[in-house]
């Protein structure tokens, strides 16, 4: 392979046809954990992944410092039942309790399975689990650990299980017939090879939606979570006819101003404070738990302080013991390896000085609230409203960080194994004309002379989201945003890619815009405010408990996304057409 990007488009290259039992889209934690039960059952598994090394791809390919789990060690708070009891309040009552309960019940089993894969969750010094309480949770469910090699152990298990892994490969469209998924079309952005993959089941595990709004640095790829997760699963699921929910809710965190990086959990669980320009520790004004409030509340508090003119906001660690500061420094480096280098280049010592912080860019994930994911609606087996199409991790409606991804991924894998025990008939043939149309469109992106660069297209989406869909929403602003997003959609066929890598980015840019449109549509429908600035309608500034304990469900309509609502007293699966058919 050449050492420089390939601009030439191998148009004459044959499409490679593959057939498998399970196709997994995304080789991160959720996708890998879905692959494991399928491999254990002797199924053939193909994984498509945009990265190159399975041991280091996905959101936490670089490492992770916390793992949320019930362990069932004895005390009441450590039982699934206790945590489940608190989930409605933790999610402001917008949650699919059927799925969340299954995930929480499975937590201890999946945790032990991951330990058996070789992940060491114990504290290196004490040999015991170092469990911390944070983010409004009613117990010390977060294990603080050195997860530098977390993904390596999981990736290793998948490789040893002999999954076929197509690396540097992006899935661009699902194959669906009669509301049943049977594979996908993908391409390798290094070689230019195209794949038509037929599968008995497809698991979408492509993560969250980043690069969708602006941050302090103005650099699109400087994002809190991995910027190469661009809502590919959400967009492809939508186009395939799957139902999505909670798309109106956005998530932000606090980051050192200028560097959108992870680390808030480590900071708050180990005792850091946040202060405003007057030196006031203001979090208690917003929540009695102070810095131990849910992430959504912490971000909302800072947004409010800034709008009240109380910024800049600072991180304050000066009161902490040397021992705690040592642990914090180590933990922060596990979560984002480059943070110490950043502080060094900045010339700041967070142990002794205030560090200015900013609200990060917004993303679509779980709106700063555990167990309320924004994405593809799933049933208790992680199957979406499209038969044989599963979703897990940050692209599904129950999301809970790494453990949420691991557990729902594992549930999806087991669900696939169960489904494939039933014979569901021969797989449909691939529509060759549709496949050729996808390839022809890709060729157009590479050859168009005066097309719109994908970067300009993405910038326009980000600006629109930041101005009208992000934090402060109104009916008029959201309609303005939708107008712009619709106008941008018309420009998609003429998007320009300079090379195969750019062609991958073109597809990502389209997916980001699609997600923005779903977010704006759902936000317009929810005429109330819920979870502070996770969904803040200036024209409906209060929560409406009487009318809005409901999910907003987004689906593909004749002219774009359409919404309907469902009471949160019912599981989202009650809204699935396939449930009605089989009921």
């Amino acid at each position, binding site marked *: 392979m050449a050492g420089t990007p390939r601009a030439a488009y191998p148009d004459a290259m044959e499409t490679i046809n593959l057939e498998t039992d399970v196709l997994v889209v995304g080789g991160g934690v959720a996708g890998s954990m879905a692959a494991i039960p399928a491999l254990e059952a002797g199924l053939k598994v193909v994984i498509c992944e945009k*990265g190159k090394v399975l041991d280091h791809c996905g959101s936490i390919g670089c490492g992770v410092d916390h793992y949320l789990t019930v362990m069932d060690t004895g005390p009441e708070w450590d039982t699934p039942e206790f945590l489940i009891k608190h989930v409605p309040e933790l999610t402001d009552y917008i949650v699919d309790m059927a799925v969340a309960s299954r995930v929480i019940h499975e937590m201890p089993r999946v945790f032990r399975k991951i330990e058996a894969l070789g992940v060491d969750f114990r504290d290196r010094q004490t040999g015991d689990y170092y469990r911390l309480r944070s983010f409004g949770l009613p117990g010390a469910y977060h294990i603080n650990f050195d997860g530098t090699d977390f993904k390596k152990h999981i990736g290793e298990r998948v490789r040893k299980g002999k999954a076929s892994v197509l690396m540097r490969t992006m899935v661009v469209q699902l194959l669906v017939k009669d509301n049943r998924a049977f594979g996908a079309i993908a391409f390798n952005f290094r070689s230019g090879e195209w794949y038509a993959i037929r599968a008995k089941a497809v698991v979408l595990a492509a993560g969250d939606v980043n690069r969708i709004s602006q941050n302090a*640095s103005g650099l699109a*790829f400087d994002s809190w979570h991995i910027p190469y997760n661009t809502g590919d699963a959400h967009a492809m699921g939508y186009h395939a006819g799957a139902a999505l929910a909670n798309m109106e809710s956005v998530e932000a965190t606090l980051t050192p101003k200028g560097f959108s990086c992870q680390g808030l959990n480590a900071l708050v669980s180990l005792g850091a404070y946040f202060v405003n320009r007057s030196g006031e520790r203001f979090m208690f004004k917003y929540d009695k738990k102070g810095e131990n409030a849910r992430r959504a509340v912490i971000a909302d508090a800072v947004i409010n302080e800034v709008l009240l003119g109380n910024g800049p906001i600072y991180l304050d660690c000066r009161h902490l013991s040397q021992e705690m500061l040592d642990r914090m420094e180590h933990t922060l480096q596990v979560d984002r390896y480059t943070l110490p280098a950043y502080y060094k280049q900045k010339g700041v010592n967070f142990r002794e000085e205030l560090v200015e912080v900013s609200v990060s860019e917004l993303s679509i994930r779980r709106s700063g609230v555990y167990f309320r994911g924004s994405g593809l609606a799933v049933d208790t087996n992680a199957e979406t409203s499209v038969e044989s199409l599963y979703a897990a991790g940050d692209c599904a409606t129950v999301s809970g960080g790494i453990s949420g991804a691991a557990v729902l991924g594992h549930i999806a894998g087991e669900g696939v194994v169960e489904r494939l025990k039933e014979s569901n008939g021969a797989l449909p043939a691939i529509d060759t004309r549709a496949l050729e149309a996808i390839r022809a469109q890709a060729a157009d992106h590479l050859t168009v002379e005066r097309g719109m660069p994908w970067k300009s297209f993405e910038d326009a989406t980000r600006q629109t989201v930041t101005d009208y869909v992000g934090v402060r929403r109104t009916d008029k602003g959201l309609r303005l945003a939708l107008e712009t997003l619709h106008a941008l959609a018309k420009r998609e066929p003429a998007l320009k890619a300079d090379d195969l890598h750019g062609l991958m980015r073109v597809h990502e840019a389209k997916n980001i815009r699609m997600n923005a449109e779903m977010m704006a549509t759902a936000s317009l429908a929810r005429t109330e405010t819920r979870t502070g600035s996770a969904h803040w309608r200036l024209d409906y500034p209060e929560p409406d408990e009487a009318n809005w304990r409901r999910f907003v469900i987004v689906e593909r309509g004749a002219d774009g996304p359409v919404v309907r609502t469902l009471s949160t007293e019912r599981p989202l699966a009650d809204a699935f057409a396939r449930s009605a058919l089989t009921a």
Partner: protein
Amino acid sequence: MDTKPDAVHNPIRIDPEACIRCNLCDWICPGDLIYKEEDNRATLPVIAYPDECWYCGLCQTICPTDAITVVFPEQMVRNTTDVKSLLGKVVD
């Protein structure tokens, strides 16, 4: 180390003296930014898309000879953005 000013900031600096042309940085980059010609010990890795870097440092951690340094641009290190500008426009 390459210290030439860049039109686009180069976040990944590779020391050509230390680099052993092993391809690991190309392999590990989650964003497909680093391109290294395989089986050619004469060529250095190329940072093909510097403005798409996540600043994760995986390339630096994997490099067997510590030939890579991640360097942050000015707008990340000394940021002057008004945070309010990220919080949307009020449309009545």
